[in-house]
């Protein structure tokens, strides 16, 4: 711009916190040179509720409903991560049946989370229709959750040591029906988007983050896999019996927005596959392990990370042998993934910034905690 006769000064633009495409209350301070982004800075904390501090004042069982409110789009994954961390602390393993039900529900939740992402991301890019279709399928999943545990969004489905609720009558059938219905529906989304020229031109070679940068920033989940790194905690460090399931880790090589879209769509298909296998594995048995009513874990600490829909979700729980945790630290995937925004958006256009924020798949409840 320096060659032009006009004076070019840097323009500082404030995007958010009330901006529909920031998917919550994210504020991005964008530095612009014409249409070009020369730098971004995220201002977070608008949804800070002090969840980690709340944990220090609640018993172990009482804190479980709060974790659902961090990543509220994938509440069940959060609950699983927390329950696994406390179970590791008290050296209790959930019974076989509980583990299978847990896997089925977390995979359904992964599909629901990716559906919300796909719908809203397409909406940001300008394709309105996929949102309605995605919400339609998500409704079926939420109905299963509602029938299973009594809540749709912030489910509180799992308890420490296993499950509170036995599966309802027709649970297996409804899961299978959903899977049968879902696969052609994914084809439908792909028909709308994958080969669409506008979609491709808006996403291909936008917001590239290569494998080295991903590792440097600690980016995990579909973003890392779209850069060609085959890293999935379900395969690398299996939990809840994931080693028994046969599924693939979809990867791509470019690491741009389009590849992230492809990876997430493929992941939905794989999740449906896992749900099918899980329903087959479902055998009668106890659903909750031997957990004392008043939980007093021995002094120590436990860290468990699971593959949440957005990436690696870690829970670090420290016990001081009392009824309340001494410290709970959460490693949220969206918080870590969000920091790569500046790297991806620098040098792109303002319109691409929206696409880049969209593909990170952030939930501000989790970023701010």
């Amino acid at each position, binding site marked *: 711009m320096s060659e032009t006769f006009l004076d070019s000064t840097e323009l500082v633009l404030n995007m958010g916190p009330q901006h529909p495409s920031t998917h919550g209350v994210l504020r991005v301070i964008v530095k612009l040179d014409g249409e070009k982004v020369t730098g971004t800075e995220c201002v977070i904390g608008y949804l800070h509720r002090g969840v980690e501090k709340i944990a220090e004042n609640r018993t172990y*069982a*009482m804190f479980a409903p709060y974790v659902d409110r961090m990543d509220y789009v994938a509440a069940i994954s959060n609950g699983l991560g927390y329950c696994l961390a406390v179970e590791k602390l008290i050296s209790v393993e959930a019974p076989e049946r509980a583990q299978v039900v847990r896997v089925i529900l977390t995979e359904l939740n992964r599909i629901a989370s990716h559906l919300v992402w796909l719908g809203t991301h397409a909406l940001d890019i300008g394709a309105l229709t996929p949102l309605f279709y995605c919400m339609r399928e998500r409704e079926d999943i939420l109905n299963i959750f509602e029938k299973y545990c009594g*809540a749709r969004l912030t489910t509180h489905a799992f308890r420490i040591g296993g499950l509170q609720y036995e599966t309802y009558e027709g649970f297996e059938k409804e899961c299978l029906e959903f899977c049968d219905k879902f696969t052609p529906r994914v084809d*439908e989304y792909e028909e709308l988007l994958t080969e669409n020229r506008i979609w491709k031109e808006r996403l291909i070679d936008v917001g590239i983050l290569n494998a080295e940068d991903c590792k440097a920033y600690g980016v995990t989940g579909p973003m890392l896999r779209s850069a060609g790194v085959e890293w999935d905690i379900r395969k690398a460090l299996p939990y809840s019996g994931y080693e028994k399931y046969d599924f693939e880790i979809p990867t791509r090589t470019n690491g741009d927005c389009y590849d992230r879209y492809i990876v997430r769509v493929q992941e939905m298909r794989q999740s449906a596959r896992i749900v099918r296998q899980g329903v087959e594995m479902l055998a009668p048995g106890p659903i909750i392990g031997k957990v004392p009513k008043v939980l007093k874990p021995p002094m120590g600490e436990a860290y468990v990370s699971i593959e949440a829909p957005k990436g690696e979700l870690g829970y670090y729980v420290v016990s001081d042998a009392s009824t309340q945790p001494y410290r709970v630290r959460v490693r949220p995937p969206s918080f870590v993934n969000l920091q790569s925004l500046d790297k991806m958006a620098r040098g792109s256009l303002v319109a691409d910034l929206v696409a880049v924020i969209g593909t990170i798949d952030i939930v501000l409840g989790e970023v701010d905690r």
Partner: protein
Amino acid sequence: MKRFLRTILLADLFEGLWVTLRTQHPRNITTEQYPAVIPKVGERYRGLPRLNTNPETGETLCISCDLCALACPENLIVVGWVRNPETKRKDLVDFTYDTSRCMFCGLCEDACPVDALELTQDYQMASFTRDGQIFDRELLEEGTKPTKYKW
């Protein structure tokens, strides 16, 4: 050339529209007509709390053990009781449940040893005041009376 023709003939547009047109049939409608049609929620739905009474005698099932208040993460349940000098048992005097702070986690329901406190399938619990969200014993036993709309 192919790309040019596709642009001229709006091929991408029609490919997308074909998906939309396929779902136009009335049997594909998934919208719910609330409040004209009140949807049925699942049997385990955690909604409005209810304090169960014995259907025959009308006496409360609550034994004032205070376990629900202890289990509640938000400390929103207050159980008021007096010791009955004759029977030596606790008599329930008052029971308040602050639904404005409730997150419907169901821990109180799980803690109740006599199934007196229950989260029901009722989800219409809006009120015009903050005080209206604090349910007393009477309201918990009888349930709310949501406004009926004519359609």
